[in-house]
């Protein structure tokens, strides 16, 4: 079975456009959550968001889409991150259009961030809007396929918050199976009235910036962003480009409730167990976990219960959603990218906003910038709406 290596990373979030910008703010403990200035909604006055600080027009500029009239913000974010990842991996045109190169993306919102256009088109109020062909979940994937001439396997996944983690997992599996040599994996989600109002209707949004793993946490903060990784098989990889390795992954269904995790943390526990088993890694060999850590009462509690089911002593962990907000489908890949940063630079970033650690748990989230620590195995957790739980383990190259 082919080993799976990561050779390219691309990311855009409220921490900035590109790896360097994201890394800098992680190291400095600087959150990207604040008041939204580009996203239009009644809630920009009362809620906080992890907004990408670039307008759609600016995104078009930086992604070479100046003449486009129908690219959704989700697609624009995807273009940015995909280009950065592909460039780092040094993929040629021939590499990209090989039948053995695939793409797996993910989104929750897709092009539905264009609320007014969608409303008009779906209710057939007027002539078709310019965004008529932009709404589908898979649409941004199709645009990437067209831009990069990808002829191999393609897929778009939507399992809500675990989507891009599932994309990484599937990409790794396809490479291991020998069917593909290279896969572009990740996801994108832009802020949208659909999701903001949806989560607000469920009353799980905090009216303050989210504080994952804080005793008085009030809910989640929505964010936007995109991330892509280039995965390559052992067979074709240029060893000089290897950033890290994907060694383990697991997916399970909590099957308890549409929007809350089981008190016993069944789904998260199973997912982590599967990842460890597949990776051939013992629990005590995990040096760091990037937790799902949304900042809701239910998630953070059940996630820690999950940790206690697996680890005698949970390793260092944080939630980088305290920087970016919850980027929905993009969360899995963005947070996996941050795991790779920890592996590459032997550092762990502080979880922000904790005033009082959660009661009843011996383990606490890491609150300081830690450097010079050996991180050999890092785990990234993503536990989606509807109970879809995925855990991925990355290994130092």
């Amino acid at each position, binding site marked *: 079975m082919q080993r799976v290596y990561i050779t390219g990373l691309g990311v855009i979030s409220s921490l900035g456009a590109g790896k360097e910008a994201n890394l800098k703010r992680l190291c400095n403990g600087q959150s990207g959550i604040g008041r939204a200035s580009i996203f239009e909604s009644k809630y920009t006055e009362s809620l906080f968001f992890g907004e990408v600080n670039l307008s759609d027009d600016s995104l078009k500029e930086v992604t070479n889409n100046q003449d486009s009239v129908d690219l959704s913000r989700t697609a624009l974010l995807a273009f940015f991150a995909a280009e950065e990842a592909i460039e780092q991996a040094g993929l040629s045109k021939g590499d990209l259009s090989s039948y053995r190169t695939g793409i797996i993306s993910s989104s929750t919102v897709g092009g539905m961030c264009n609320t007014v256009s969608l409303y008009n088109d779906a209710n057939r109020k007027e002539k078709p809007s310019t965004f008529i062909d932009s709404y589908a979940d898979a649409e941004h994937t199709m645009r990437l396929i067209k831009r990069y001439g990808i002829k191999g396997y393609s897929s778009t996944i939507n399992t809500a918050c675990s989507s891009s983690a599932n994309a990484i997992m599937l990409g790794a599996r396809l490479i291991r199976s020998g069917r593909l040599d290279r896969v572009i994996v990740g996801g994108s989600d832009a802020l949208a009235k659909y999701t903001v109002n949806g989560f607000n209707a469920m*009353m799980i949004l905090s009216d303050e910036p989210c504080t994952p793993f804080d005793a008085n946490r009030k809910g989640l903060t929505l964010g936007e962003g995109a991330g892509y990784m280039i995965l390559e098989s052992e067979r074709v990889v240029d060893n000089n480009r290897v950033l890290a390795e994907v060694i383990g992954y697991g997916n399970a269904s909590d099957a308890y409730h549409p929007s809350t995790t089981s008190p016993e943390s069944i789904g998260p526990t199973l997912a982590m167990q599967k990842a460890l088993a597949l990776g051939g890694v013992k629990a005590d060999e995990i040096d760091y976990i990037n937790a799902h850590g949304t900042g809701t009462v239910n998630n953070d509690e059940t996630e820690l219960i999950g940790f206690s089911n697996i680890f005698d002593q949970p390793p260092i962990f944080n939630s980088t959603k305290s920087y970016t907000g919850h980027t929905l489908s993009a969360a899995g890949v963005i947070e996996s990218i941050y795991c790779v940063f920890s592996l590459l630079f032997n550092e762990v970033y502080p979880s922000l906003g904790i005033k009082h650690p959660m009661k009843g748990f011996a383990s606490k989230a890491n609150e300081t910038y830690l450097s010079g620590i050996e991180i050999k195995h890092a785990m990234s957790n993503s536990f989606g709406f509807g109970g879809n739980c995925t855990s991925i383990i990355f290994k130092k190259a």
Partner: protein
Amino acid sequence: MDQSREELTLELKKHIIEYLNLLEVKPEEIENDELLFGPESKLELDSIDSVELIVLLEREFGVRVTNPTEGRKIFADVNSIVDHIVSSREN
């Protein structure tokens, strides 16, 4: 208000059936004092339904329920919801 308590109660039940899409349930089959929520109740409404009821009260009766905890007491049964509507109208 001119509407009698009986009329209000019937209107409320019709809205409850519509908002919650209760299948094969007629207004007259909902007792005014039967528990609405929880495993002992006939209808077995849950937390998502309580949010729907908050919206129902605001949209159909102009009555605000500010948080789910307050809602829990108000939504105990049809009588308590009607009481809440009546007292909100009096204020």
